[in-house]
Every structure is written in C-alpha cells, then in structure tokens.
C-alpha cells in the first residue's frame, strides 16, 4: 500500500513514531501483563512473576462471557445491517430525488448527528417500554438503526459518483432500484466498509444504553457483563479486570489485526473528507 514515492522516514521520525506507539499501546501491554499474573498486587510490578491462567478461569466462572459475546454479536449485526439499508435509502433519496423541503430534512438529519442517544435515555426508555421491547436485542438496537452519520457519509459518497454512470444505466433501461444496486452501492463499497468499522467499534463498546434496557443474561452485551469486575467496593482487582477486558476486546482486536490492511485501504478509497 505504500507507494514508491512516499518518502522514507528519517531515523528521528521513526524513533518518534515508535515512542508514541509504545505510549499508546502501553495500557494494553499492562493489561496483558496483569491478566496473566497472579493478583498479588499489580503494584508490585515484577516482570518475572509466574504466569497463570487463573484470572481468566475466574472471570469465566463468574459470568457467562460466551453468551455475552453472542448477544453483542447479534446486537452489532442487527444495527449494522439495518443502518446500511436505512442510510443507503435515505442518502439515495437526498442525492437523486431532491424535492421541496428535502434540504430542510437533511439539515434535521445533520442536527441528529450531534444529539447523542445517551442524552435522551429517559424518553427513549419510556418509548421502548410502551412498545414492549424492554430487555430485547431488537429494543437495544432500535434507537440506533437510523444513523445520521451514515446518511451524511453515504450522501457525500453518492454525490461524488459521476452523473454519467447513472445516466448510462438509465439509458440501458434500469429502474431506480436497479440503478442504486448496480451503480451506487458497488461504487460506495469502501465507504460501507469504513462506516462499518466505525459503527461496529462504537456499538461493541457502547455501555450506558444497553445497561439501562437489558435485564437478563440472554440480552446483556459484553460491556455490561464487564461491569461485574469493575466494581470497587473492595478496591480494584486489576488482575481480574484486565483478564475480563482482554476477553471482551479480543474478538474485535483480532478482527482488526487480521483485516487492518483492508480497513485502511477502504478508508483510503472511501474518500471520507
């Protein structure tokens, strides 16, 4: 991915970059260190303390993490799938079917970009209770299914697609839906991947709203499950907290390490600017 003409970094730049990288990764390194060592006070930092898997087994014994993973996975998939569809349709409308007032509607969407669902917790909870969707994965995802960020992003991408391509498809007799699926969506693929990364990491880590709406093991996502270990009545037990943290971030971290090249490249081509 590095083009031939990008300059080779000087030694100072490289050292600076490495130092910054070390600082940035050090909390995770500490988490790894603490998670694999006995709990005898993380404060006595001994590099050669014996390794142990006991913290992980304690964490797994204390909470059904596999189930939490499944819940998080279902939640994130639901949100991502719906967001892609809902936002694509809306963005397509804004770009290709402008009508009187759609400009104002777009402004309204932009305002939502700044309004965090977290703020509207009380009202949204009331709505969900009225719909009978408390303590369901669908209910947990519902307020997030339309994303202003997604609409904005897809609209930008669609706008950058040359009109000629759309015209050509129309001349071939394609209808509006076919034009969307054959011209716009394929060309916006990098944007979709970039948006997907953002939305997955946001909802994988989302905490406050799931905490309020979920009641049971069958719906609770990992972040809420993680809270068991972060309680401080007895003081923080870093060994177990870090073990639980690693367990909960592992899938996302592994996915990112495996696919980071694709992620970055899609961001590159997405032309988010």
């Amino acid at each position, binding site marked *: 991915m590095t083009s031939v003409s990008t300059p080779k970094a000087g030694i100072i730049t490289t050292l600076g970059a490495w130092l910054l990288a070390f600082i940035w990764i050090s909390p995770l390194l500490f988490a790894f260190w603490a998670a694999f060592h006995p709990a005898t006070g993380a404060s*006595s930092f001994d590099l050669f303390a014996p390794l142990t898997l006991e913290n992980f087994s304690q964490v797994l014994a*204390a*909470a059904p993490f596999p189930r939490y993973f499944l819940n998080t996975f279902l939640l994130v998939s639901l949100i991502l799938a719906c967001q892609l569809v809902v936002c694509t349709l809306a963005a397509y409308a804004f770009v290709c079917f402008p009508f009187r007032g759609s400009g104002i509607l777009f402004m309204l969407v932009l305002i939502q970009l700044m309004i965090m669902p977290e703020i509207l917790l009380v009202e949204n*909870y009331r709505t969900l209770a009225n719909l009978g969707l408390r303590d369901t994965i669908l209910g947990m995802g519902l307020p997030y299914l339309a994303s202003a960020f997604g609409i904005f992003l897809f609209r930008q991408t669609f706008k950058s697609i040359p009109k000629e391509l759309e015209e050509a498809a129309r001349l071939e007799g394609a209808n509006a839906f076919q034009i969307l699926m054959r011209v716009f969506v394929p060309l916006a693929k990098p944007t979709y991947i970039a948006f997907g990364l953002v939305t997955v990491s946001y909802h994988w880590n989302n905490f406050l709203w799931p905490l309020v709406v979920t009641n049971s093991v069958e719906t609770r996502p990992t972040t809420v499950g993680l809270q068991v270990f972060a309680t*401080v009545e007895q003081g923080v037990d870093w060994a177990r907290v870090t073990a639980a943290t690693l367990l909960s971030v592992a899938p996302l971290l592994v996915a990112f390490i495996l696919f980071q090249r694709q992620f970055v490249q899609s961001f590159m081509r997405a032309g988010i600017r």
Partner: protein
Amino acid sequence: MHIIKRNLLKLAATGLVLGVVGASQAFAQTKLDFYYPVQVGGPVTKVIDGYVAKFMAENPGIQVAPIYSGNYNDTTTKALTAAKAGTPPAIAVLLATDVFTLIDEDVVEPIDQFVKTDEDKAWLDGFMPAYLKSAQTEGHLWSVPFQRSTAVMYYNKQAFKDAGLDPENYPKTWDDMVAAGKAVTQKDASGNTTRWGIGIAGNVGSSQWMFGALAAQNGARLMNDEGTETYLTDPKVVEALQYWVDLSKKNGVHPQGIFEWGTAPADFLAGRVSMIWHTTGNLTNIRKNATFDFGVAPFPGHPNPASTLGGGNFYIFKDTSDEQKQAAFKLAKFLTSDEILADWAVQTGYVAPRDGAWKTQTLTDYTAEEPNALVALKQIPNAVPEFSTHENARTTKILNDALAAALTGNKTPEKALADAQTEIDKILKQYR
C-alpha cells in the same frame, strides 16, 4: 425496505409467540423480577442463582428471575426507571440509604405491613437493631437488611514493629492514631514520603461514609432520623473534619489530596499506607494478598469508637399484584434466614445482620478460622447508619463536594461545611 419491515414483523411475531408459550407454561405461577447489584468480587451471580433455585424448589408456585443489574447506582437507576415506566421489579436489593428517595418516589411498600404471623415477627426481631434503624421512618419499616457491611481499620503490624510500636496495641483514640501514624511514616532522602501512616478514602461516594464515622467518634451526628435535617455546622462535626484535614496538613501522616477508595487496598498491600479504613468485605482479599503480618481493629474514638454501617436492603415494590408482593416477601424472608445470611457472609465477606446467623455452624467455623471477622461484629453496637436524607443522592454529593473542598485545601472545614449546610437546607426545606 419491505424486506426489513417484513423481517421486523417476523421478529416481533416470534417474540409474541415465545411470550405466549412462556406465559402458558408459567400458568398459575407467580413471576418475580428480582434486581440485585454486585459490589464485590467472586462468582456472586452464581451464588444468588443458587439461592433462588433453592427457593423455587421449596416454593413451586413462584418463579423468580434474578437480574444482576450492575452496581448499586445502576440497580437503583434501573429499578426507578422501570418503576416509572410502570414495570417495576417485585423486589430489589438497593442501598439502605436510598430509603427516602424510594419513599418520595412512592415506589416501595413498607415491609412491616407483610409481617402478620408470630413466625414473621420472630424473624423480624432477629435482625440487629443497628441495621434496622436506617430503614425506620414515618412509623414504618421500609426494608430489611441483606448485604450489609461496616468499615474497620486494617493495619500493617510489620510497619508497627519496624517503628518500635507494639503491633498488638492498635490505636484506640484519635491522638493514638496520629502518634502511631507519625511513628510509621517514612521519608526518602529527598524528603518525599514513601510510607504514609493512615489513609481514609475521600472520593465521591466514599467520603460521606468515612466522615459519618469520624463525626460519630466525636459524639456528633450528621442528620436526623427523618432525613429532613443535617447538622453540618455543629462544632463537633467541624472538629471531625478538621481532624481529617489535619492528618495530612498538620501532622503529615495522610497522603495529600483525595485518597481513593478503589486503590486503598492496593496501597495497603504495597506497604505504601500502614493503616486504612475500609470495608470488612476486603478481609479475604487482604488476607490472601498481604505479604506481611496485618491486623484488623475497631475504629479509634474521640472518645466514642464508632464505625459506620453500609450496604443494601431488600425493598418490595408497589405496582405489582398482591400475589407478587406476598411472594416477594417470602423471598426476602428466605434470603434473610440465618443459614443463607451465614453462607452469604462467608461467600462474600458481608456482615450478617442477624445474631442468629453468627451462631450457625457455618459462621462459627469461619470465625474460628478467621477471628478477624469478629471485629466487625463487636463494632456493630457502636455503629451509626450512613448519611441519608430526602433527595439523598443530591445531599450526599453536596457533602462529598464539601469534604473534597476541605481535604484539597480549597476551603476551610468550617466554610466548606457551612456552604454545604446552606445548599442542603435549600433542598430539604420542602420536606420539613
């Protein structure tokens, strides 16, 4: 978009069918939602699930769904949010100090109205009066104690020995504590303190607890039983805060700034602080991880060696059916039986709030092995309830802020407490 709609409908329909099936299976059963927080380490959810399974085996007509709901704060949030939306839990473990909030929101039933038979009365009489006290107001008992705690002093015997003190002779007065603190405090060559004498947690959420003990030791109290008055400008209360501030400012035996509850055990275990005031719930942790000889002591007095009580009680909620309320009461009685409370104490480190529980085999075996656990029991008659008023979260936060302002040197203790009293008066005026 149609596809989504259809799928949504399908999803909704599946949910409906499942709901109906579930309901028909549970026919003639009373269903209870039971919210509880987890504030301590260990597989607490499993322990609770175990108790509940046992309860349901004994009461086939009742089906309990135990719902772990985060920490105390989260659980209160959840229970109140659910109650406001018309779907309250039948029963919940919430902070004893939440009592006025829950009464003002009109979401809980007084628990004494369920006490009818002699057996019920005997059960109620078995609780220690100190623990019941905070739940009694407006002529009713509003909750029963379950996961209760109290604070004790952990001290580093090795540090005492190093400083030439008798490790068995723990400080019994405020002056003793300062003297011992001075003796064990160590500085490095450049004058920085490497080992402190004493640490008392002053962070938001902990400081009012610790300060309640300090005030009581000085013979003062912070609030009245009705939760409508606070006495923060009482000279004895001011003196208690002055003592706390001076531990650091004048005597140099306490770390500067706010000492954190969360890191206090780590500080103690690392030998950085030689005495800490912390919950009895920490005994197991400290016993397991201490690399030195340590002791557990009651709090010092000035002259009254008082401690402070904390922890959670059972509350039964309104807006549920009578069957549910009766079933909830049954569950509360079951979970506060001597045997369960004894087992709960051993599993979690909480203090069993019933004398009977301390006489069970489970707890006598435990205290034989770990006599330190008895310090808490001995201290209970001298203990006072945690700070609690109407609009408790807000008044507590005001007190927390005042304590922090004094401890960090932003205000004098006198000024900080006077300001807080003015603020609290504004809030409590409407309840008088």
